[in-house]
């Protein structure tokens, strides 16, 4: 199958396990009672078979739950194996963490091994404390900020992902200022909260109109600040799409199904938004990675994703959007993008802004 040798790996060495109890997390209701760390056997099998697929350039995103709970020794083993298998600088490692476990040993390790670090931080103390709680139910803000400080001291400038719920919509300006001025962050992104399965937290869902308003506010703040070094994923995506380019973000560039997510027991899924039996592509315990990725189950996933494009016939913004994130479609992967209307308006408005900019330059 075309492209198997370009796939990016999302690896979850401890699965959903986490030391926080963020009430909006889609893993919140899953078992948090036992820590199961990926075995040396699965780790070795994965890295050696991934090397066969991507001998000269590979990307591994270490994810969770809270991936640092696998322990620093796990990552020392992983990096040692990578160094045996690939030449220097052929593997890009990224890790997404809540930063609460980061100490100087972790920070030095991550810096020495050139990890890109993403921190989950929802904004200022008040915004972060709405849902990101410790096991005791307390605001995890101070723990996360301490971790960020330790990372910075080690020379790491992390990226940030903040989750936007209905309850946080009114804090758009305050949180923008917090990231830009207090934290002096140069790049961050927003994950919109949406539970289409009517789960317990679906009352926090952000409506299409509210998402348009929120992102529009962020774009206006971004323009008003006029800081060329400030990179906000959602704004970049809209600029890329509105200028006719392929967006970098997976949710808008049609690459759904072109990643794989490895669980600690060796099972493989399309993405951590699709961890359920229906979407399991196979297991490293039974098959070779390439065979799994070239298999019928993945082919079916890709077909379902393409089928969803039938919802986009006649849309001028298809090339910029690709029917959005597969987990944000009403009725499942082949359904229509919940934020279709918001994105059309945002792309359209940005196209006008770009046209104004270009006409002033002529």
């Amino acid at each position, binding site marked *: 199958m075309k492209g198997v040798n370009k796939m990016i790996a999302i690896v979850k060495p401890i699965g959903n396990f986490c030391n926080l109890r963020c009430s909006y997390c889609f893993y919140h209701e899953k078992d948090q009672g036992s820590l199961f760390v990926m075995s040396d056997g699965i780790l070795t099998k994965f890295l050696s078979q991934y090397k066969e697929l991507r001998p000269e350039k590979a990307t591994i995103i270490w994810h969770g739950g809270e991936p640092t709970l696998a322990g620093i020794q796990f990552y020392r083993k992983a990096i040692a194996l990578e160094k045996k298998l690939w030449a220097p600088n052929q593997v890009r490692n990224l890790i*997404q963490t809540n930063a609460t476990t980061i100490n100087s040993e972790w920070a030095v390790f*991550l*810096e020495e091994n*050139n990890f890109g670090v993403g921190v989950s931080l929802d904004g200022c103390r008040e915004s972060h404390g709405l849902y990101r709680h410790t096991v005791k139910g307390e605001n995890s803000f101070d723990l996360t900020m301490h971790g960020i400080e330790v990372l910075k001291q080690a020379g790491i400038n992390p990226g940030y992902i903040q989750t936007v719920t209905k309850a946080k919509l009114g804090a758009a300006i305050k949180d923008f200022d917090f990231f830009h001025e207090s934290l002096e962050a140069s790049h961050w992104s927003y994950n919109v909260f949406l539970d289409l399965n009517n789960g317990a937290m679906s009352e926090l869902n952000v409506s299409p109109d509210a998402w348009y308003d929120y992102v529009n506010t962020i774009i206006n703040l971004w323009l*008003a600040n006029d800081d060329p070094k400030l990179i906000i994923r959602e704004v970049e995506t809209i600029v890329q799409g509105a200028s006719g380019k392929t967006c970098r973000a997976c949710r808008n560039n049609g690459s759904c199904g072109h990643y794989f997510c490895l669980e600690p027991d060796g099972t493989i899924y399309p993405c951590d938004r699709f961890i359920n039996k229906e979407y399991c592509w196979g297991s490293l315990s039974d098959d070779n990675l390439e065979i799994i990725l070239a298999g019928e189950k993945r082919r079916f996933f890709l077909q379902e994703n393409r089928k969803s494009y039938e919802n986009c016939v006649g849309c001028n913004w298809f090339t910029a959007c690709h029917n959005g994130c597969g987990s944000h479609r009403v009725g499942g992967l082949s359904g229509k993008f919940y934020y279709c209307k918001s994105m059309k308006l945002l792309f359209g408005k940005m196209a006008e802004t770009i046209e104004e900019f270009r006409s002033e330059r002529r």
Partner: protein
Amino acid sequence: MAGAKTLEASLNRAKDLPRGTMLAASCTQEWDQWQNWDDTMSPEWGDVRAGGQDNW
């Protein structure tokens, strides 16, 4: 106009990206962006762009 510097920087970052895939091609082909694919076109977690990039 307000934001001219930041918009120009963003457009410059986007200038080497391939043109978007048309609907007809996306529906019928396997995914025709593969010829243009590189690892900077990452999933959302890949947007943690700190560190490492300069040496990539």
